[in-house]
């Protein structure tokens, strides 16, 4: 493990790890987009919101990309936002199930 100044080549260029991480962010954004697209059919507004989230995830992955080193606290906020977004999507999914007019346990008649 290395640390310290930027004189270490691994600190300046962590190899393909950065690229793999960018691809992971992209896959996560695509996952949000797929879920949003699937929900467009039943609940267009919520599906559109989740599609918007996918753009947000993609932007977060790019905005928080470190130039040379990783800024821990900034990435922490970005990752917290992703977790909150997924939890929100779960809550929306539950609401969608129970608010559906043909639901067995509808919350809204």
């Amino acid at each position, binding site marked *: *493990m*290395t*640390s*310290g*100044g930027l004189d270490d080549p*691994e*600190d300046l260029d*962590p*190899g393909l*790890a*950065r690229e*793999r*991480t960018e691809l*992971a*962010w992209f*896959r*996560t954004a695509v*996952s*949000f987009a*797929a*879920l949003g697209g*699937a*929900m467009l059919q*039943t609940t267009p507004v919520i599906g559109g919101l989740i599609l918007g989230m996918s753009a947000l995830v993609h932007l977060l992955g790019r905005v928080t990309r*470190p130039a040379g*080193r*990783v*800024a*821990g*606290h900034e*990435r*922490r906020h970005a*990752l*917290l936002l*992703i*977790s909150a977004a*997924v*939890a929100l*999507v*779960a*809550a929306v*999914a*539950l609401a*969608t*199930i129970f608010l*559906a007019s043909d*639901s*067995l*346990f509808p919350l809204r008649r």
Partner: protein
Amino acid sequence: MSESEPSGAEGGEGAPGRPRESEPDARFTFANERTFLAWNRTALALIVAGLAIVQLLPPFPGLPWGRHLLAVPLIVFGAVLSIGGFAEWGRNQRALRRGEPLPRSPLPRMLSVAIAAVALLAAVLVLLSEAVE
């Protein structure tokens, strides 16, 4: 991990009773972040599976609540997995900063148990619906 230049962000250098922390190798930080993102994609997949069960599957004959019984735990566990993934990322990052061994994650075991439980429940529902029919 070198201790020559501790991070100021989550510092702790020289604080009494607190271990020294330093910025870990970027490759390890990236790997930790990829793991976090992978857990969140898994969480999204569980949520999608739950939604698909309710919206795409035909109802179990004689068991109209069957689809909800399968879907709700999947969706709730998706949320739990996402929050757990974030907590896991934080624990791993702290261990990396301190040069300690990475803590064992309960998430893989939880995921295995949850999927096995839902699969078992699905099998029971199929058998029950056939019996009722």
